[in-house]
Every structure is written in structure tokens, then in C-alpha cells.
């Protein structure tokens, strides 16, 4: 099977970490002009395979060939030398450098000096050839996320990459930016590059790739030679091993207004992130908040949770004005919170699971009396929650940090749902979770909604927002850029609002 026509051929790749077999006899072939989808759930071995290709790890077994020639890749520098470029999910850019400086990192230079004019010329060439343009003198901190990603792709092309790996490239993009990315990728493939597109978003894989390699539990579970011949549900079945079972949204009765914010602003000594937010949410309703991250969502969540104090405007909970919000008061008012960053804000990874599980409730008389913890009650509560939410943990005493992402999210969910919140504030609740775990979270949200609670769902995942929300508002630069009922909403409109467009302008 050593076809010299393949641009890249990985054969029989095996890699294990201790007892875990991350890659088991994986074959991958890539031709010029290919856009190969690499599909799989978290832990399926996609990342390990790509890290082997990019020189971060060495394979235990197997060989890698480029244009029929066997090569060994010991380091990132080797990979780059063989024309392998990677666009990481977390960009590897220096914010304080200009576009040109970022392109020149690791380049040899001319006569001992940085070759700015050469880089400028090359950037123009790439722009003409593939339609990827950027202002060479802009600092990265001035670029939008989409532009930063373009810079990452240009960086790979700059190093004459023949093979381009993109790791979940759309995770951070608005829908319009994603469309732009797909166009660019098609142009690159036409130009003779081989592209590996890693994702777990089925519709994107369907949309942009021409072949798909599906991985499950470290092995190749399927190779689709023509993407057009499979449906999204085919791909889902190949990826998960079972049919997807998205939760059904029933109609629910709207209740009273539980929470309303009017003209909320923040600022003072810190940069103003909220510039007048008006929103309210009723019982039995899921309010989706869309927006590219960094447009004030985090601050909004902090204000509602009582962590960040607002400088102007009023917060009302069930008709009562809250003059001095604090985390403890908001908890008392039955406002639960699932924070964006489960590892740092949400849980204490270095402490046992039972501590993480009762942390917000530690003052309740069932968990402590006269300032002394009632450990037996805490342990039995934790065990109950582990069972009820099917958390994969050996017991309540296990260290929190040893749980997987999906299970940590279940811990947060269990903790907030245990005492039946009236308002649940959830930020990016399924980020980084695989399909099954995300479905579990969604099902919990919907059942809470049917019980009459109000849910505020802050997410960058439009699919999630459209599947769950009753109403969607879009945040842009600290303001609500628009609001629509779910039945009137379209992905295109939301995408435009996320990018800063205004209706009727």
C-alpha cells in the first residue's frame, strides 16, 4: 500500500500512553487537492494522530511517508521542514507583534537581518493566489478572531506547507467567518494542497470535505471515500457507534418574570465591558445569548451571579430590586450558575469530589452545623448525585481533577440542580464535551425548563442555541445587538448581528 501518488501516507500508527491505547493501527492517506475530514469524539485519538504527524509525539509503531518517501519526524521543526503546517485550535500568535513579525518567527532572515520586504512580497503573493489578505503592519491584537485564524493559515503557507492540518478551526468563528474559511480551504485544495480538517461538527464535515476518516476509541472506524454519499446521521452513527438522539423540546408554559436587568453598565476603574444591557427572563423559558466571546458575556454572567458589581442600572429578581448583589445573596435567591471555566471558576480540581460537590451549599444546615462540616451527610449527598447524574467516578473521595471534562460538567450540573434553582445561568455548558455528554446536559436543561425554571444559556455554539432557546439575544461590544423569538430566527441573521451588523441600518 505504498502508493507514491499520495501526498501523505500514515500507515499502521500505534501510540499508547501507559495502559491507554490512543492510536491503534491507524492508516491515513491524503492526496493533493484532498480535504480530508478527521472526525471523532473527544478521546478518539484524532489529536494524538495529528501530534504524531506534527512531531510533538513519536509513534510507537508505524511509518509516515511523504510523496512515497519514508520520513521520521522528531520535532516540530522537522514537520515544518517536510511541509506540514498546523493551525491549532488555540492560536499560536504573538499579540504584540505585527502580522509580518508573526510570519517571520523561526525564519532565517537575510544577511542576518529580518527580511521584512521579502515577507511583505510573499504575503501579497499568497493574497493574490488564494484570496487571503491581511494588513502586514497591523498588530495581532487589532485583528478579529477570523483574521487571526487567517494569519495562522498564511503562516503555514508562508513556510511552503504542502499539508495543512486544521484543528477544530470553526470553534471560535462566527457563521459568516466559517463560510469564508471554507471558501479559502477550497481555494487552497485547488492550488494543490492536502488539507486535514479535524472537527466533530457533522454538518461542517459534510459541507467542506471530500473524504472523511472516522475514528473511534483509537482506531479507524470508517473511511468514507466520497463525502457526498453519506448523510449527517450516517457520520454520527460511525462516530458514536449509535444513532444520535437529540432531546425533544416540548412546549412549556411561560411563568412570571424571574430576573430582569435594565440599563446595566459596568466600568469604574476597569474597562467598560457592559454598556447598557436590558434583558429579562421568565419561568419556563430558555433565553439564549449568542455572540463572539469577549463581547461582554463573561461580565454579564458575573454581574448576574453577583461576582462583578455594576455601576449603573438595576437588577430585579422576582420584582424586587437588588441594591447590593453578592454571590451569596444571588444563591439565596435561587440563581444557580454554571461558570464558563469549569476547571478554575467552577471546581477545585485538587480537592476531593465531595468538596467540589457541596462548595456553594456548605453553609446549609444539612452540610455543616456550628461551623463544623458534617462529613457523613456530605458523602452520602455526593454519592446520591453521582448515581443520579451517572457521573463516572470511583467514589465521592476521588480527586476532582481526575474526572473527564464531561463528568466535571455533570458535577457542576448536579450541584446546581440539586436544590432546584429558579434561574440557571449557564456559560458555554457543552464546550469541549462529546456528543453524548452534550446531549445529557441539554436534556437536563429542557427538563428544568419544563419544571418552570428560567434558564440563561450563554453559548458560542449556534446549533446548541437554536436547539434549546425560546428566545435568542445577540451581544456585541457590551450591548444587546438584537433579539428574536426562536421561530423567527435564522442563522444568517444571528451571524450578522454577531459580526456587528445592525438591522435596518
Amino acid at each position: 500500500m505504498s502508493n507514491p501518488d499520495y501526498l501523505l501516507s500514515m500507515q499502521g500508527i500505534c501510540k499508547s500512553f501507559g495502559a491507554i491505547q490512543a492510536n491503534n493501527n491507524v492508516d491515513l492517506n491524503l492526496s493533493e487537492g484532498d480535504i480530508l475530514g478527521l472526525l471523532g469524539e473527544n478521546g478518539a485519538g484524532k489529536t494524538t494522530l495529528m501530534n504524531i504527524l506534527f512531531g510533538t509525539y513519536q509513534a510507537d509503531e508505524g511509518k509516515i511517508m511523504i510523496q512515497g518517501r519514508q520520513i521520521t519526524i522528531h520535532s516540530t521543526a522537522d514537520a515544518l521542514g517536510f511541509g506540514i503546517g498546523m493551525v491549532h485550535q488555540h492560536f499560536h500568535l504573538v499579540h504584540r507583534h505585527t502580522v509580518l513579525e508573526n510570519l517571520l518567527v523561526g525564519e532565517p532572515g537575510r544577511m542576518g537581518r529580518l527580511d521584512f520586504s521579502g515577507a511583505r512580497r510573499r504575503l501579497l503573493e499568497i493574497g493574490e493566489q488564494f484570496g487571503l489578505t491581511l494588513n502586514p503592519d497591523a498588530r495581532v491584537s487589532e485583528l478579529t478572531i477570523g483574521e487571526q485564524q487567517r494569519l495562522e493559515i498564511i503562516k503555514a503557507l508562508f513556510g511552503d506547507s504542502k499539508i495543512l492540518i486544521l484543528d477544530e478551526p470553526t470553534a471560535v468563528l462566527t457563521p459568516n467567518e466559517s463560510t469564508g474559511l471554507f471558501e479559502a480551504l477550497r481555494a487552497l485544495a485547488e492550488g494543490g494542497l492536502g488539507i486535514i480538517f479535524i472537527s466533530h461538527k457533522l454538518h461542517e464535515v459534510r459541507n467542506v470535505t471530500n473524504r472523511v476518516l472516522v475514528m473511534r476509541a483509537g482506531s479507524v472506524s470508517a473511511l468514507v471515500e466520497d463525502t457526498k454519499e453519506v448523510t449527517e446521521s450516517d457520520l454520527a452513527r460511525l462516530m458514536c457507534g449509535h444513532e444520535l438522539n437529540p432531546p425533544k423540546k416540548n412546549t412549556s408554559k411561560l411563568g412570571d418574570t424571574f430576573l430582569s436587568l435594565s440599563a446595566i453598565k459596568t466600568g469604574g476603574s476597569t474597562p467598560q465591558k457592559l454598556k447598557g444591557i436590558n434583558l429579562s427572563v421568565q419561568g419556563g423559558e430558555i433565553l439564549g445569548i449568542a455572540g463572539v466571546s469577549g463581547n461582554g458575556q463573561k461580565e454579564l454572567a458575573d454581574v448576574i451571579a453577583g461576582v462583578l458589581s455594576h455601576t449603573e442600572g438595576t437588577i430585579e429578581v422576582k420584582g424586587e430590586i437588588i441594591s447590593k448583589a453578592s454571590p451569596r445573596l444571588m444563591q439565596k435567591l435561587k440563581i444557580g450558575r454554571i461558570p464558563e471555566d469549569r476547571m478554575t471558576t467552577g471546581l477545585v480540581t485538587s480537592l476531593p469530589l465531595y468538596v467540589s460537590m457541596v462548595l456553594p451549599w456548605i453553609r446549609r444546615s444539612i452540610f455543616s452545623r456550628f461551623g463544623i462540616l458534617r462529613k457523613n451527610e456530605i458523602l452520602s449527598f455526593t454519592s446520591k448525585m453521582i448515581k443520579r447524574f451517572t457521573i463516572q467516578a470511583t467514589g465521592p473521595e476521588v480527586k476532582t481533577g481526575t474526572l473527564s471534562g464531561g463528568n466535571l460538567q455533570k458535577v457542576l450540573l448536579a450541584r446546581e440542580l440539586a436544590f432546584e434553582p429558579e434561574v440557571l445561568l449557564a456559560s458555554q455548558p457543552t464546550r469541549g464535551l462529546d456528543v453524548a455528554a452534550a446531549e445529557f446536559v441539554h436534556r437536563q436543561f429542557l427538563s428544568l425548563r419544563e419544571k418552570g425554571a428560567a434558564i440563561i444559556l450563554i453559548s458560542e455554539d449556534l446549533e446548541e442555541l437554536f436547539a434549546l432557546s425560546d428566545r435568542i439575544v445577540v451581544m456585541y461590544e457590551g450591548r444587546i445587538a438584537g433579539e428574536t423569538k426562536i421561530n423567527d430566527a435564522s442563522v444568517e441573521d444571528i451571524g450578522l448581528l454577531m459580526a456587528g451588523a445592525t438591522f435596518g441600518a
Partner: protein
Amino acid sequence: MEEIISQIFQVGFFAAIIRIATPFVFATIGELFAERSGVLNLGIEGIMMFGAMTGFSTAYFTSSLWLGILAAMLTGMLMAALMGFLTVSLGLSQHVSGIGITMLSTGFAFFFYRLIFGQPSTLPNIKAFTPVGIPVLKDIPWIGPVLFEQTTLTYLAFAVVPLAAFLLYKTPWGLNLRTVGENPHAADSAGVSVSAMRYQGLIISGALMGIAGAFLVMVQFNAFTFGVISGRGWICIALVVFGQWGPWKSAAGALLFAMIDALQLRLQASSIIDLPYQVFLMMPFVLTIVTMMLVSRNARAPSALLIPFRKEER
């Protein structure tokens, strides 16, 4: 008042500023190289001390000042390499390692000095560097005696500033160094070795700190005393912040500090203002704190400063 001004602002005063600034320029630019690569080198105070001691001893026994400078440089590079082993290879806390290096180097300096010289009743001394006038330029009225009748080391110090700016901003090496200090993952994925760059930044810093220490015993004084550095290293840490991690601004900071130091020396010597001399000694430090408060509020350190780099982590 006029009397004070006429007593102080003479050619000698300005020449003194340049001379006093010299060790600060060397050590600050050194610290800058380390910090731009992402390592705070708090070993500076001790490295200067150790460099002063080895430089002095070498010059004393070989009667060659330049061999002394070389010895000081090598000493600094060695201690900085040890700092690199702790912070880059082992990834230990830069604060703790730096203070450790300072204590170790200072201890070495005192120990070896005693071992070599014992406890002499008169301080052993060397023949210090003498000013070298630059022909023609030194005859320019006013400017000549201030700028062009200095020691060779001072000329070197002020040559180091444009050289550092050139290296940092115009060469691939400098770009790689700055990238390692800002986002080591970006450097790594471009095939640049993060640890190699950090070792290089540190070793350059050590060399310059060693020279700075040697200058003090070979120009400023002509003997080694245990109080020879007396906090000058720590001042350089502040000067880098003051200079917002740029070579020109940091050198300007060194000059400003030197000016205040020269001024307080004059005020101490003159009997115009009758205050305890400790008040004058305090002046440069108080003013350092004040200017730092004013200037460094919007200073932004290299993003990866103090953060050890491990390849697998993101």
C-alpha cells in the same frame, strides 16, 4: 539658590552622571535580554557582586584590567546558566530561583574573597581604568569633557544600547527571543527552541551583569568591598520596568537614576542644605519609587514572563 545651581551644574556633574550610569546601563540591558525571553533574572544583585569579586581578583593578580573584565563576564555567564538550569530546564519558580542565585553568588563572592585575601588591614587595591579622551571630539566645549573623556567601558556601555535594539528588533534571533518571551507556543510551533532562546537570553544577561559589577571595582572604586553593589542590581530590575522593556527607554531610565544619584552626592558634599546625609542617600530610591508609580502603570511585561514552558501544556 543661584549658589546651589552654580555649585552643582558644572561639567564635572554631567560627566559624573555618565560615569555613574555605566554599570546601570550594562546590567539593565542584561536584565532586559533575560526578561524579553521570559525569564526574570533576580540573580542580578548576586551576579554583579560575584562578577565584581572575580573581576577584581583577576585584575589584582594578573595586573590586567581586561582579563578582569573577561573573568567577570565568564562568572556572570556561569551563574546565569545555573539560573537557566533551575528555571528553564527544571521549570522552577523564577522568583525563588533568582533570589537563590543572588544569595549563592553573594556567598561565593565573600567566601572566595576571604579565602584569597584573608582579612587584610589595608584594602588590597588595583590601578583603576583611566578615562580615555577621544581625539577631536573631546575638545568640543562642554560636550567633550562630559561625553568623550570617559573610560572605554563607558563607551562600550553606550554602544551596547543601540546594539541591543538592533539585535532585538532587526534580527531573526531577536524576533525569536521576543516571541519566546511573549508566546513560547508560537515559537515552538515555528520550530524555534524555547529553552535554547531562554538560555541565550540569560547567558547574555549574566555576561552584562558581570561587567557591570566589575566596572564598579575597576572604575568607580579601585578595591572590592562587601557593600560594592548595595542594591544597584535591584534598581536595574525597576529600570527595566521603567523602560517598558525597551533598550532605549531603559538606558534613559539609567541616566535619570544616575542624575539623581550624582545630584545627591553633590548636595551631600556641599554644605548648603543642612540635612543628615542619609536623607540624601535615600533620594534616588524615593524618586525611583515615585517615577515607577507614575510611569509603569501602563507598562506591559512580556506575556510569558515568569511562566515556565512545558511542551505538552497549552
